[in-house]
């Protein structure tokens, strides 16, 4: 028995000792890991004695892994964190406040960042992250296909857009105007953020999906499928959207900046002039999109916060961000990074620069991720014809209100105790 316990203890200690004093564990989500691996050697050269251990989490498992790590007390030193997830980890008190470090820093200059993006890192006035790259959704489109259909410029508003979608979704061709994977919430969310009404109401205590604005966005979204302008498939089934876009299966693709890199890499050189990007059309004229992206956060439990902050500063340098863009196409959150390098002269990036001045953050509460997931599940049902738009709006509100019950209870309790 004693032997067993000893072995267990030994195994446990084996797993712990990996944390030697100069090792910095840095989690990345999705493809960023491969690119950042190329930036790290420079950092390690500047900071001899610090070794960065990179770990890549797959995007679809990242949320679960992060929360489990926090719950299990096995967090890394720092991580890349989607800015909609910051409220959750902040509620768990897992993140190190960064305001003091930012004020002392010569590298991280708040005024240089896009304000809406910076704001997503503030939870109840406390700064928990430094924006690393921005992710807003806009349109990728096939210039040649649009031109063939008689359109010289990309759409500016929904009416024009619908018109083009119709022209580009001919029944005889096995093609569609646009790809909107039914299991991704970002596309519908972007349309919903263009509306005047907020998505949650009463200090984020209740859902506000019954508002006229959200219904308008949902109607536009659902109709795109109903009119066979988008296929009813998830991104699992869409598989390789880049090739499909290249083959002209889709004329529009509503997606994020990293895809500039993907398309450049995956489409043949002859096709590179056939596609471009455009700001997202709004209900009337150019519309808003989501203030998404990832931030760099440091965990409270990290024993190497100073070294972690040095890495954050390193990755926030305009020159490094420009290189990061070159490697992956992830767009920098600060204006000065846009002023030089490939980014400055890149016509395909210009639409993003334009869009970034017109982005809106999502409600900064831990429940948001869950609400928006439910929103998409219900929306997918509406797309499949199981619910009408009105029914779907009511259902999303019902689910959102249920999810927010605990938040209301906690707010009420705080209110009473004050």
């Amino acid at each position, binding site marked *: *028995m004693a032997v*067993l316990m000893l072995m267990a203890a030994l195994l446990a200690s084996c797993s712990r000792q990996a944390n030697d004093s100069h090792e910095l564990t840095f989690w990345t989500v999705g493809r960023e890991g491969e690119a950042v691996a190329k930036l790290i050697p420079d950092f390690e050269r500047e900071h001899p004695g610090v070794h960065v251990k990179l770990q890549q989490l797959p995007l*679809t498992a990242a*949320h*679960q892994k992060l*929360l*489990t790590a*926090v*719950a299990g007390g096995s967090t890394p030193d720092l991580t890349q964190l989607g800015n909609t997830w910051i409220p*959750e980890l902040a*509620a*768990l*008190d897992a993140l190190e406040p960064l305001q003091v470090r930012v004020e002392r820093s010569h590298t991280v200059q708040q005024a240089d960042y896009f304000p809406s993006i910076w704001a997503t890192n503030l939870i109840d006035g406390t700064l928990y992250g430094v924006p690393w790259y921005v992710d807003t959704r806009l349109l990728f489109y096939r210039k040649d296909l649009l031109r063939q259909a008689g359109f010289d410029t990309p759409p500016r508003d929904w009416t024009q857009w619908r018109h083009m979608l119709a022209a580009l979704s001919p029944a005889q061709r096995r093609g569609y105007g646009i790809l909107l994977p*039914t*299991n991704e919430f970002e596309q519908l969310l972007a349309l919903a953020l263009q509306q005047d009404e907020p998505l949650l109401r009463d200090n984020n205590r209740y859902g506000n999906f019954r508002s006229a604005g959200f219904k308008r966005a949902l109607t536009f979204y659902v109709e795109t499928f109903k009119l066979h302008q988008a296929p009813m*498939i*998830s991104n*699992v*089934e869409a*598989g390789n959207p880049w090739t499909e876009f290249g083959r002209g299966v889709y004329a529009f693709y509503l997606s994020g900046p990293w895809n500039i890199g993907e398309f450049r890499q995956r489409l043949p050189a002859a096709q590179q002039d056939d596609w471009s990007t455009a700001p997202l059309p709004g209900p009337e004229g150019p519309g808003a999109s989501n203030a998404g992206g990832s931030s760099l956060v440091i965990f409270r439990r990290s024993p190497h916060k100073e070294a972690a902050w040095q890495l954050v500063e390193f990755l926030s340098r305009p020159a490094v961000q420009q290189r990061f863009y070159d490697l992956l196409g992830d767009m920098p959150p600060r204006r000065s990074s846009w002023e030089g390098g490939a980014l400055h002269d890149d016509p395909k990036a210009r639409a993003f620069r334009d869009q970034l001045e017109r982005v809106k953050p999502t409600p900064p509460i*831990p429940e948001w991720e*869950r609400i928006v997931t439910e929103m998409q*599940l219900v929306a*997918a*049902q509406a797309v*499949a014809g199981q619910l009408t738009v009105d029914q779907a709006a009511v259902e999303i509100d019902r689910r959102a209100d*249920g999810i927010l019950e*605990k938040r209301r*209870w*906690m707010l009420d309790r705080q209110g009473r105790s004050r």
Partner: protein
Amino acid sequence: MNSPRAAWLFLAPALLVLGLFFLLPVIAALVLSLTDYDLYALADIRNLRFVALSNYWELLHRRLFWSALGNTFYFVAVGVPLSLTASLGAALLLNSPLARMKPFFRTALFAPVVTTVVAVAVIWRYLFNTKYGLINYALDSVGIHPVDWLGDPHWAMPTIILFAVWKNFGYNMIIFLAGLQAIPGDLYEAARIDGASVPRQFWHITLPMLKPTLTMVGMLTVAGYFQLFAEPYVMTEGGPLQSTVSVLYLMYEEGFKWWNLGSASAVAFLLFVIMFAVTATLLRFSRRGGEA
């Protein structure tokens, strides 16, 4: 001689492990299911509320729970009979005196059982790919339209069932084979002299003699199939349109993705109760059938 003391010493390690890491957590799960343990409670235990049965109540009013339950029942109700039929069929073939190279076939048919679910699920995902998968290509070559196996909500679960049958039939096949070999040969001999056909022999000798084995194997298979998780996790991530979300998948998402440990525990307990009820009912039916 101090046999009792020695016995307890021999038992201690196993009982300690089972008690601490299985029985205690099971009891704790019951308690947890009566609370609203969530992200906020994880941060500060003062945010924990005792909610009595309201987790259960809410689950019973959640469409996703019912559809997860429905998906799981679908998987069990179609998968288990299919799986048992395949196992029995393969066992009969292997047991036939006409069969050649029995050891090779036995090993070949059993091979999928020992493979790793995740790895072979990955294989199947590519085999059943709508565009480049071998399955659709084969169907196309005989003039059948390509099926969107894992992307169509109507086909995703059947595809997963096919996968599960392929993966598991070998296990029960071995048990059936042993059961078949235990049937005395003179029973068949007598039947043949009476002029009974092969199907009649199967119906009147093989099946009744195999019944105890069949009942036991059926029970275990039902219990196993209720625990569907890895297949949808790897092959479909619960989609499309949540058509492959099983009860355990729901528990996993609820518990470890959203950290609602309270309602996740309630899901786990409901699954347990349902499994228990189903297997007990099946057992009773098979007993009653035996008496008749």
